[in-house]
């Protein structure tokens, strides 16, 4: 037994040595072909050193993780895939279509909004030398993404008729829509849709890929190592290598960063992030809008007293949003306006910010005959800050005359029994950053269980019309009208949007340049 392990260890070392040699030769090649990329600006003072290996830590999925990101729900799964595979595109507010394309040159939309044509960027090569074609994109979308159980990938099948998608030559993919939509670019280019080679079923080290890095080592639950892919489309990364580590505990991630064992720590808890404030060697880099996670409370309209719109409004008025931002997130969060998807193009930013008005809340509750009513808020530590904001909300409700109490479930418990969750009268929840209208259609419209009794066919129709409107101004008007109804009568209190509190060593640059900073890519990063 022990001999066997020794042998395996030996083989592994051998492999690592070979990988190191390969990395070395890659380095040589990189030096000789060092192309002056358009975005290479030397750092102030010292010229930022090309190369080095950046080490970053994330929450992974433990020893049961695999390389199949279509079935991997953790942050690390997506970050690893982003480093390894080419992307259709990322959201970019400054880009021409609001997106920055990856392996695509552009997306054309037919006049009747019934079909999207994806134009493949010519000359994109996989690591095995073959060229990326329409077939690869088609396979990734209509076989792999369509077969995935993860919500992010289901967005494609919810909007496009993937069964009837087809390649038109090598460089064109035509995707028919299920119903007319004008915001399809925003869905396809959210950064989640990555491309692997046609026919890929198993995801393994050594499989062809066309991302900025190629995978050299993968240990489930521990991490993965990459080296730069010198034939990457667009620009070649500055880093020689990348090491993505799995460190589950927030304090441990921060500790590894301050002691120099890693250069980047993802998604720290507010308290941990606070402890890094006066550390001169590291820097907090919270994600910016739209990559903010909404923390919310869902009121079940099928349960008294939430069937009364006055009670729902009172609960929204009772919450002290500023206090949550200050005390839970030490100021590094944003006040919410009871609507998800802040910062996305289809978010209704024209609506007035809801005030904190406990007096009015109390009066509304009295009108509705619900003052002194007993309510239990159920929540759990599913993301940092969730329990803390719920605790404050319960106190706010008490001030407005509600006999509120908090029930905190252990981690992982809140969503585990979903039918029980959807039947709760008042439940904690969080919203991942995704566009407003398409997400409404997927998870709230039509009386879906996660809508907590919200069933308004008029609003559903309005959202569908807004998405089917090719005139942006008109679409905005319709979308805002739909969201105003949710804002006025809806059953969601959404007081806070919190960033992912990431932190980096002082010398690390260029992580934000890669867009989709919620799940950072490192193709433009450099070490000082």
């Amino acid at each position, binding site marked *: 037994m022990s001999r066997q392990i020794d042998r395996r*260890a030996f083989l*592994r070392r051998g*492999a*690592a040595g070979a990988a190191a040699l390969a990395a070395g030769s890659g380095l040589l090649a990189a030096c000789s072909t060092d192309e002056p990329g358009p975005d290479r600006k030397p750092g102030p003072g010292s010229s930022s050193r090309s190369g080095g290996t950046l080490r970053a830590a994330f929450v992974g*999925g*433990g*020893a*049961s*993780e*695999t390389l*199949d990101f279509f*079935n*991997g*729900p953790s942050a690390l799964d997506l970050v690893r895939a982003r480093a390894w595979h080419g992307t259709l595109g990322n959201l970019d507010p400054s880009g021409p279509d609001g997106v920055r394309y990856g392996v695509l040159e552009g997306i054309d939309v037919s006049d009747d909004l019934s079909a999207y044509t994806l134009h493949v960027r010519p000359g994109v090569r996989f690591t095995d030398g073959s060229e990326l074609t329409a077939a690869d994109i088609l396979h990734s979308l209509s076989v792999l993404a369509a077969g995935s*159980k*993860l*919500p992010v990938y*289901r967005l494609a099948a919810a909007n496009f008729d993937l069964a009837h998608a087809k390649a038109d030559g090598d460089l064109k993919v035509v995707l028919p829509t299920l119903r007319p939509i004008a915001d399809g670019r925003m869905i396809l280019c959210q950064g989640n849709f990555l491309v692997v080679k046609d026919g890929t079923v198993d995801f393994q080290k050594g499989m062809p890929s066309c991302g900025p890095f190629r995978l050299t*080592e*993968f*240990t*489930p*639950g*521990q*991490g*993965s*190592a990459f080296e730069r892919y010198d034939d990457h489309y667009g620009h070649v990364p500055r880093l020689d290598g990348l*090491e993505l*580590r799995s*460190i*589950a*505990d927030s*304090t*441990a991630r921060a*500790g*590894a960063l*301050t*002691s120099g*064992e*890693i250069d980047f720590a993802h998604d720290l808890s507010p308290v941990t992030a606070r402890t890094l404030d006066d550390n001169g060697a590291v820097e907090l880099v919270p994600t910016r809008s739209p990559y903010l996670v909404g923390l919310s409370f869902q009121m079940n309209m099928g349960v008294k007293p939430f069937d009364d719109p006055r009670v729902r409004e009172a609960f929204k008025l009772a919450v002290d949003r500023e206090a949550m931002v200050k005390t839970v997130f030490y100021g590094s969060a944003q006040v919410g306006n009871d609507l998800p998807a802040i910062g996305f193009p289809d978010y209704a930013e024209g609506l007035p910010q809801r005030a904190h008005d406990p007096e009015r809340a109390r009066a509304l509750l009295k009108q509705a005959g619900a003052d002194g009513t007993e309510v239990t808020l159920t929540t759990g530590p599913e993301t940092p800050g969730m329990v803390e904001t719920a605790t404050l909300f319960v106190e706010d409700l008490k001030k407005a005359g509600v006999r509120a109490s908090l029930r905190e479930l252990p*981690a*992982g*418990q809140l*969503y*585990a*029994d*979903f039918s*029980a*969750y959807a039947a709760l009268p008042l439940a904690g*929840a969080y919203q991942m950053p995704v566009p407003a209208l398409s997400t409404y259609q*997927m*998870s709230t419209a039509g009386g*879906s*269980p*996660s809508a907590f009794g919200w069933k308004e066919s008029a609003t559903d129709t309005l959202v569908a019309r807004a998405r089917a409107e090719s005139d942006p101004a008109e679409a905005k008007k319709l979308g805002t009208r739909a969201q105003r109804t949710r804002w006025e009568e809806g059953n969601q209190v959404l007081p806070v949007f919190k960033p992912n509190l990431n932190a980096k060593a002082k010398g690390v640059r260029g992580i934000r340049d890669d867009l989709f900073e919620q799940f950072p890519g490192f193709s433009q990063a450099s070490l000082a």
Partner: protein
Amino acid sequence: MSLTVFVGRRLAAGAVLLAVLSALIFAATAVLPGDAVSAVAGVDASEAQRAEVRAELGLDRPAAERYAIWVAGAVRGDLGRGFVGDRPVTEVLATRLPNSLLLAGLTLAVTAPLAVLLGLWTGMRGGAADRLVSTTAQVLAAVPEFVMAALLVAVLAVWLEILPRVSVIPLGGTPLDVPHALVLPVLTLSAVGLSVATRLLRVSVADAAASPYAEAARLNGVRGVRLAVRHVLPNAAGPAVQALTLTTGALVGSAVVAENVFDYPGIGRELQLAVAARDIPMVQGIATALAGVMLLVLLAGDVCARLLGAREGHGR
């Protein structure tokens, strides 16, 4: 009864017990509220998608049938695949269980000799040293693991900077590749086990030292180390051996706090993750394996106790 027969009987009984335990574990996963569907399909999945995923995972079949399928696979060494990530359970066990055994083994290697030393010293000497060690042990036993971990990190990793803050193990390597990263987890886990074993040993050493047998040895001129090791320890070690066995066996699966704080890749956290995701095959496989380990460790403890007893008989 010879030792071989004893071990053989105990192994047979252990196998039966393990089968019963596996059924109990399965029953426990079946009565846990909720299922893996939310973990796999996401919170926003529609009813239709949920039903589809439930069927795909086989969760629409009755629990007894699922257990029968699992047992049929398990006797052939196939523990199935996890719901989340679809990785074979045996692979997860093969990568994580050795790390946990190593941690528990090292902890035992630190605690056992120290407990013997301190137990003998305090039990036979008494006085101020006894009070000091006993009080310290009592305090240590009362300190929660995470506080102990934080204290050790603050002193050894942050202040003195002689040890790494987390156990960053080279990819594809084992914890043995970075021995210094093992120090903090082992120290944290040792504190509690050491204090419990020391206190147990101290009491039985004091008893044994006051026994007529030890008195007779003393009158015969046996003193010091010889008295302690040859005459007192064999009579006193029984309860402490049992206590150490129990804590070591339990450590394999329940060092979750230390695993989290130091990011040590053990099996305890995998079990915790699997329970949170309602990943039944993973929970079932890991929990049954841990039950097996515990039974083996208990057996080892009993064998030790028997050998001690045999020696004691021989000594008389």
